[in-house]
Every structure is written in structure tokens, then in C-alpha cells.
């Protein structure tokens, strides 16, 4: 048809240039495949660009490096590969039955077809139902980080953090660094969800962490002027008479993430509900391939974890996608084994308990379904 956009083909399309997508594109590119890496933002790195803290905990090569530096380093490596094209401000909008992926770029709908696809679209933040939760000043933790760490804008003077997982703890620390007073970190669960290293850091700065508390109401008419928090019982119901009023001009919600997997639903990848992994997640095998052949997932899109595991999953998806297409990956068996054992190490210990339970459930469901 005249004027119709042609379909552009390549070996591997990687959707999302966050930690998972960057590593997938790098590893696929190193094997010599023609790779297209797209991201909706004008920069690569995804959530890494907001990570001002040094990474730790894993033996992975990027431990000790700040998140945004990791993004730059991987991107520079990718840019050395002539067979990888990075396309920014390009949003994947649809995946169709014939394998065509539509991408919005510079106001145009482009059509791509990859022999293999790696979906590394990340996650979206969860929202919390409480009174006046639509008041200006109620932020998601992602928005707070974007304002502070990407645009250099202070989100508040005094803030209440809801959620003591890693995001709640790290963003609280960054808020204090930026000069914002964190009135308290409240956590509905009976214990802190994130790494105790992060919890100790904010506690040393004088920020109280209150477990077993939730937000009942945001106060204010035009914007947030305060918040009422209260204790909750073992059935997650508010306990009468335990309300505390806190004066803050913003409330930051760090109450979890869910996988962003619209394209996977469209590709008819079987999805399962596993709360430990963030909600609905795609079925996939140990090599990150979904039951729909040649569609791979990596990072938060495969289940909520963190950046280091996202990078490892990205590597895994990258080397497996290209080997399936017939490219030879140097020392494949050893590389694969190393990544899998790194992932296992990363998920060991008490913090990995939830992930291990979620992945065990995923395996059970996969074996039943496939």
C-alpha cells in the first residue's frame, strides 16, 4: 500500500534499555547478531539513572559502582558494537499475531520484526487506597526519585515514606541527602522488607522506621498538609485508637511494583498470578524464554527483583536468544552456568526468601502448563 511504513527486520529486538535490556543487547550483540535496542526515554539506563548509591552485595563486576555509572558503562560497550542499534524515544505500543512490533518514534508508528524478542520493559508502581490519596503531594517513589535525581527538584520539605522495602529505604536516604526531612518510614508488615544495611543507614540519620503501621488518610484541601497513620492488626485491619497525626507536605508511596507486561499479554504469553513476584508475571523457563518460542523476558518484566538480578537475567536472555538463532556464543555452557549460579547466590539468604518462593511457584505452574 502506498505510503505504508515498511516492516524493518532484524535478529533480536530488545524492548527496554534498563539494566536487563542493556545487558541483553550487549550479550546478543557480542555474539554478532543484528540487535535493535529501543527505549521510550531519551536516555538509556532505565531506573539505573536514578540510582545514586553504590551497588553491593553480589560478586558481580558492578558491585561498588553507582547505578547511573553502570548504565553509562554498559551503554559505552554497546556503542562499540556496530551491529547493535540503540533507538531512543521509541515506545513499543503493540505486538501483533504476525510478529510485528509497532513502535512510536518521532510521531511515527514504525514496524519491526525480530527473529527473537527480549521483553525488558520493567515495572510500574503500585498504588494504595487511602483517604485523599489523590491530593497533590502524594507521590510514587519513582516520581520522587525522578524529580530529585534526574531533574534536581526537591519534592517536599518534610515527607512521610510509606513502605520499608529497599525502594522505601533507599529513597528515604536519598531524600535526607537532598535536604528533605523524612518524618518517618512506615511499613504495614511486621518487619522491614529491605536490606538491613539500608535500614541501618537511615536509622543512623535519625529517621524512625515504624513497622505494623499504615497510612489512613492524607490531610489537606489543596495539597498534602499532613497524614494520619495507624497500627494494623495481623489481618491488615486498622486498629482503632492508634492514630497518629504527622505533619508533612508530601507522602511517598513505596508499596511495591508490578511487572509491565502488556506486550507479553498481546503476544499471548501465558501469564500467572504470583504475589511474591509482584502479581501477574509471564511463564518462562530457566533460560528466560517464554512458552511462546523466541520471546524472552528479563528483569522486572519477568518478576519484581532488583537491578543486579535484572542484569544477570538480561545476559541470560541475550545469550540464549542468539544461540537459538544459530549464532555461536563463545564459551556458552560456562557463561550460562556462571550466570545461573550468580543468580542463585543473589537470591540466597533471608531477603531472597520471597523471590525463591515465587520462582518455585512459577516452576510448579510451568511444569503443569507446558
Amino acid at each position, binding site marked *: 500500500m502506498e505510503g*505504508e511504513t515498511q516492516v524493518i527486520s532484524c535478529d533480536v529486538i530488545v524492548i527496554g534499555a534498563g539494566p536487563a535490556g542493556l545487558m541483553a543487547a550487549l550479550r546478543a550483540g557480542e555474539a554478532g547478531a543484528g540487535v535493535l535496542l529501543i527505549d521510550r526515554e531519551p536516555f538509556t539506563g532505565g531506573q539505573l539513572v536514578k540510582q545514586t548509591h553504590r551497588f553491593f552485595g553480589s560478586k558481580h563486576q558492578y558491585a561498588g559502582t553507582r547505578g547511573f555509572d553502570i548504565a553509562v558503562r554498559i551503554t559505552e560497550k554497546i556503542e562499540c558494537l556496530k551491529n547493535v542499534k540503540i533507538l531512543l524515544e521509541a515506545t513499543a505500543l503493540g505486538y501483533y499475531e504476525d510478529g510485528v512490533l509497532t513502535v512510536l518514534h518521532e510521531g511515527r508508528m514504525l514496524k519491526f520484526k525480530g527473529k527473537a524478542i527480549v521483553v525488558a520493559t520493567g515495572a510500574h508502581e503500585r498504588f494504595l487506597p487511602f483517604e485523599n490519596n489523590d491530593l497533590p503531594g502524594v507521590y510514587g517513589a519513582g516520581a520522587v526519585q525522578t524529580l530529585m535525581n534526574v531533574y534536581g527538584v526537591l519534592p517536599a520539605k518534610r515527607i512521610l515514606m510509606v513502605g520499608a522495602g529497599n525502594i522505601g529505604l533507599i529513597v528515604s536516604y536519598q531524600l535526607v541527602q537532598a535536604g528533605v526531612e523524612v518524618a518517618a518510614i512506615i511499613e504495614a508488615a511486621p518487619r522491614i522488607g529491605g536490606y538491613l544495611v539500608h535500614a541501618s543507614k537511615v536509622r543512623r540519620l535519625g529517621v524512625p522506621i515504624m513497622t505494623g503501621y499504615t497510612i489512613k488518610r492524607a490531610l489537606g484541601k489543596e495539597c498534602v498538609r499532613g497524614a494520619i497513620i495507624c497500627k494494623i492488626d495481623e489481618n491488615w485491619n486498622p486498629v482503632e485508637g492508634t492514630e497518629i497525626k504527622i505533619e508533612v507536605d508530601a507522602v511517598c508511596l513505596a508499596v511495591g511494583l508490578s511487572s509491565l507486561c*502488556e506486550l507479553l499479554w498481546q503476544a499471548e504469553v501465558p501469564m500467572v498470578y504470583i504475589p511474591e513476584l509482584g502479581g501477574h508475571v509471564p511463564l518462562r523457563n530457566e533460560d528466560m524464554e517464554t512458552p511462546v518460542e523466541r520471546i524472552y523476558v528479563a528483569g522486572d518484566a519477568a518478576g519484581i527483583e532488583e537491578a543486579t538480578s535484572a542484569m544477570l537475567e538480561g545476559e541470560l536472555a541475550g545469550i540464549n536468544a542468539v544461540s537459538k538463532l544459530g549464532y555461536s556464543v563463545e564459551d556458552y555452557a560456562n557463561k550460562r552456568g556462571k550466570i545461573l549460579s550468580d543468580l542463585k547466590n543473589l537470591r540466597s539468604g533471608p531477603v531472597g526468601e520471597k523471590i525463591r518462593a515465587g520462582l518455585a511457584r512459577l516452576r510448579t505452574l510451568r511444569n503443569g502448563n507446558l
Partner: protein
Amino acid sequence: MDRDIIVCRCEDVSLAEIRELLREGYTSLDEIKRIKRCGMGPCQGKTCAPIILKEISSFTGRPVAELAVPSVRPPVGGIKLGEILGQPDSGSAYPGVPPSALNRYSSSTKPYRPPFCLP
């Protein structure tokens, strides 16, 4: 009280409205979406769907894992009308559509070439 708890920010739907629908017998996300437009706004249900699913689950006693979710159709984000209409050969081919809506290709008849080459 529940009126002040917003479940769907895109379409401004409160928890009270969701609970009323449940009591009226609308106990699937699809039905609630059709009546209240939850999930049809800019975020396409990313904010409200998990909350509504939990409400349905606690009302019906069925676990969230067993609840049906609406189909996810392309496009997953907003695109301009001109892009849906395709490339016009002249402005007149699309009567009633203002040139501004047809955006930057209203005068172009050449097939579009992307501004890059693929490996």
C-alpha cells in the same frame, strides 16, 4: 469516607463506587471496566486493576489468581489520530480532520523512511 479513596485516578473512580458495583452483582473486572471505565484511561489499568482485583477477591472469597482479567490490546499508549488514519495523499482525503491532527505528514506522499539504518 470510601468516597475520598480514589481507586482509578484516570477516570476518577472511588472505592465506594467499586463496592457499590460489587453489591449490585458486578463481580468481574471486565464488567466494572465497562460500567466505570476503570482501566480505559491513560494508565490502562496499571493503577486500579490490582486494587479492584483485591476488592473482588475479598467480596467473592475467590483468590485473585482465579479472577479473569480483561484483554490487553494494542496500542498500549496514546498515539495521534493522523497515525491511525495513515498517510494522506492530500489534506482532502480526510474530510473533517484538521491538518494539525494529521501532523507532520499532511503534505507528504513519499513513503516514510526511518531516520536510521539497522544492522
